[in-house]
């Protein structure tokens, strides 16, 4: 017994030590590489690297794939008897208000449909005395004037406006002007009236929130830009550790004009919520399998589609 024990120990020793050393070397090499090179974030027209290894590793996770799997799982039709219990459980966890849901819970065939549930009529009265209203239910992450191209926030995300909205060529400036213009000029170039200012509002939709979004005002859409990208979490706790996250994630931006001038309405996807549907834009397809993560966008002209204040505009779907 003793001889066999010594022989087995020796065998494990000979096998285990080289394997352990090999894995350790591999891990150290990866750590060193990621720490030096990081993940390109591209802030201010130059590659800025996320040197924090945890953030870099997070960016490398296959979140688009897992989101699609989650979308497939949650689209499976549930037994009618189980629906109220399961949706009630979901509502309890994420603090969703079931009293304002229009339909009976058993009417939603799957979690995807419950996620984009319609609310009772007049559950969201539209403020008539305001020219700009909230486009969605959620938490206000940030609001205020935008004076610089690089939008820095005190407690939230930092992102580059040019990357977020895309090339300014499509707005007002030509290529030569684009190359020479200063960052602040970009913000000014968006304005129809130079005496005005550009303002922003960022609303975060938590999992329990109503996930349809509406038009904040009467406006005309000129074109849409669809930016493929990652599906990182946009939870406020994550945002502050990942600069330029809004420009990394998949998003659709609708650009147009309202009574006050320029307007851009962007729906930014997130982990497990990468499917964006906009009712007046049937050709939009997000989080598709065959779309590589590139820096380019796909533009579509919507021909000045008119959208009224408070009108249902689109929805974020699971997947």
């Amino acid at each position, binding site marked *: 017994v003793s001889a066999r024990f010594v022989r087995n120990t020796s065998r494990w020793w000979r096998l285990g030590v080289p394997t352990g050393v090999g894995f350790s070397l591999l891990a150290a090499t990866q750590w060193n590489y990621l720490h030096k090179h990081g993940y390109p974030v591209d802030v201010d027209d130059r590659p800025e690297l996320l040197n924090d290894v945890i953030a870099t590793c997070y960016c490398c996770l296959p979140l688009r794939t897992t989101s699609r799997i989650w979308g497939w799982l949650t689209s499976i039709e549930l037994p009618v008897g189980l629906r109220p219990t399961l949706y009630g459980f979901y509502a309890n966890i994420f603090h969703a208000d079931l009293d304002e849901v229009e339909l009976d819970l058993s009417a939603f065939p799957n979690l995807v449909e419950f996620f984009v549930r319609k609310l009772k009529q007049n559950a969201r009265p539209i403020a008539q005395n305001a020219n700009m209203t*909230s486009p969605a239910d959620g938490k206000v992450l940030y609001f205020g004037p935008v004076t610089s191209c690089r939008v820095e926030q005190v407690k939230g995300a930092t992102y580059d406006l040019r990357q977020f909205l895309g090339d300014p060529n499509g707005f007002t400036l030509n290529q030569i002007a684009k190359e020479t213009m200063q960052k602040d000029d970009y913000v000014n170039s968006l304005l129809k009236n130079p005496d005005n200012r550009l303002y922003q509002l960022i609303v975060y939709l938590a999992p329990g929130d109503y996930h349809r979004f509406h038009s904040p005002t009467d406006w005309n859409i000129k074109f849409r830009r669809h930016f493929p990208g990652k599906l990182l979490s946009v939870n406020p706790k994550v945002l502050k550790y990942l600069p330029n996250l809004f420009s990394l994630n998949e998003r659709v931006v609708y650009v147009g004009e309202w009574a006050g001038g320029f307007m851009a309405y962007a729906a930014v996807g997130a982990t497990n919520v990468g499917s964006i549907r906009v009712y007046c834009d049937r050709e939009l397809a997000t989080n598709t399998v065959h779309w590589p993560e590139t820096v380019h966008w796909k533009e579509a002209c919507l021909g000045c589609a008119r959208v009224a204040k408070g009108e249902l505009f689109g929805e974020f779907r699971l997947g």
Partner: protein
Amino acid sequence: STIVLLFEAPRDFQFCLQIGQTIKVGQALSAL
């Protein structure tokens, strides 16, 4: 998921919001 709204408005545009507050669809953004 997140909605980002960028819009042009006069310089005296005032938001009637607080950072971190919850907001509902149709709620006024400014006091005007």
